[in-house]
């Protein structure tokens, strides 16, 4: 059996002159959580819209659970559950009835749908809200509870491909953790999960693979460890620059850095562990001379790599592809 629940090949979609998806290819296997990362406007939601048949690709193939999603979108939709970026339309419903209906639409018997609602209420810690009605204009239920209900609706029944578009928006920190764990469990239970997010640091904990888009193009893919690109022992030296100040690290030949990314008034340097002591000494000297406002040394994260891949070209930058 084909292990891929989603296979996208050479996908291209334009809006007028703007190429929203430029020749994308990637896949999601059963049991795998794949993070689709990118800035706003990178083309993430456009990919999703084509998978569920809201948009037609201009070129390329999309196969969902063995069906051709471009030729037969209706068949493909049966293999996909989507939690979109917009809130699920549940006005007039309670979370319980919304989850039961969503389960029923995916073939759960009424008894199974009721059981699914009960167990999801527990899993996401939304029990007290389960029988409260959502009212128009955002009344009745908070945005966070609505978002969690939308997630519960998407996962009410087991599904080959689960697509979650920014599922943690509006959700408080403790339930966000419950949600990430719930996502990971769906993957472990055999669903392929495509997780669309710009929350790099949180997604890193649960994804198996990452696909990074930048302005419509795939700029990198691989496991978080692979994409971090440097050794696990590498460290991140973050410099806080003065307003409109030059980055002293860009011109200093004695500073050994693996990667440098500048975002606004921050410069993120990736340094090898054995270079950490001289780097800190260098930064302290810069700070003493008021060329930087502050600095910190932390373990290197995926966010550093992500920023290196997606930060617009900058003459002072090194270490990332910008072709």
């Amino acid at each position, binding site marked *: 059996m084909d292990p891929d629940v989603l296979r996208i090949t050479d996908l291209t979609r334009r809006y007028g002159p703007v190429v929203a998806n430029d020749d994308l290819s990637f896949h999601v296997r*059963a049991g795998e959580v794949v993070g689709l990362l990118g800035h706003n406007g990178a083309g993430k939601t456009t990919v999703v819209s084509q998978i569920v048949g*809201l948009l037609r690709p201009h070129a390329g193939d999309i196969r969902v659970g063995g069906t051709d999603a471009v030729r037969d979108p*209706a068949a493909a939709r049966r*293999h996909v559950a989507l939690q979109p970026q917009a809130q699920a339309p549940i006005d007039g419903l309670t979370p319980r009835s919304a989850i039961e209906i969503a389960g*029923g639409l995916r073939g759960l018997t009424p008894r199974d749908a009721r059981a699914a609602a009960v167990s999801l209420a527990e899993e996401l810690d939304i029990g007290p809200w389960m029988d409260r009605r959502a009212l128009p204009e955002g009344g009745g239920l908070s945005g966070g509870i609505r978002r969690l209900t939308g997630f519960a609706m998407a996962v009410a029944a087991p599904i080959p491909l689960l697509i979650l578009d920014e599922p943690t928006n509006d959700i408080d920190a403790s339930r966000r953790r419950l949600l990430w764990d719930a996502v990971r469990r769906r993957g472990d239970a055999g669903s392929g999960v495509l997780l669309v997010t710009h929350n790099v640091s949180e997604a890193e904990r649960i994804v198996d693979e990452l696909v990074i888009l930048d302005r419509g193009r795939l700029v990198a893919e*691989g496991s978080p460890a692979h994409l971090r690109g440097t050794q696990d022992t590498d460290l991140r030296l973050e410099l806080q620059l003065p307003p409109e100040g030059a980055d002293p690290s860009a011109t200093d030949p004695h500073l050994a850095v693996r990667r440098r990314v500048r975002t606004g008034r921050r410069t993120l340097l990736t340094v090898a562990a054995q270079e950490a002591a001289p780097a800190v000494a260098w930064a302290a000297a810069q700070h003493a001379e008021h060329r930087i406002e502050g600095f910190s040394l932390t373990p290197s994260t995926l966010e550093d790599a992500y920023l290196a891949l997606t930060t617009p070209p900058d003459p002072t930058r090194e270490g990332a592809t910008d072709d």
Partner: protein
Amino acid sequence: MTEPTAAPRTPTAPHPPSITPVQVSPWRSLGMLLRWSLASIGAMLPLIVVVQAMLAAGIVIGFGLLIPDITAEAALFLSSGAPTILLLTIGLVIVPQGVARARASGALDYQRALPVARPLLLAVDLVVWTLIALPGVAIGLLVGHLRYDLAFSFDWPLLILASLLVTTMATSVGYAIAVSFPAMLAQLLSQVLVFFVLLFSPITFPASQLPDWFQRVHEVLPIQPAADLLRAGIAADTFTASGRDLLVLTLWTALGLLVTLRALVRRR
């Protein structure tokens, strides 16, 4: 310097259990969607009944004030036209506004991404809006009866057929407007349609009062046929409808359904 690039993936170790989607019958999907739609629109139902009652009072009593010494015939004409106006208002104004809202909020796309045949979405809305609109017929007639003490001579089969057909026509045309035009334009168009239906359509007055060319226009629009057909069902002793009315209404209904279905199924 390390360069993060694409690399071959490591295969996932044990094979996870495979999940096969369940094929759900259209009837079951329809039932689920109906439950969903009734809950969301149902909250508006009391409001809509109040609006219908006020509109009916406005038409039957308000328009009556424009005609001093109103005759029994004129009163019957006015009152038997009120249900048509109410049904057309729901279908051509409230439906497009609701659909335009659903488009803007992403609710329509949410539904279109569900594992159901998209024509079912339209079927559900037709059923729900018919349920919501139909009390309008009774409300309109009740107001007429209370104001002018009119006795109606119902042709029940015709009244039921006409009510269903007019509601379906208005809802499908309203839906078509909402999915064919940008939200702002659809809202504007639906506002303009209220005035057209209320003031420039031979519903509450005979078509003979319109200029010749305008009568020709109304022969092909669905408004006058809707009014004539309903009137014949409400006061069968006084008014009759023609097969042509039925044909024009059916054609408009088909057009509305076709445009809507195309928009629901089509990928942009």
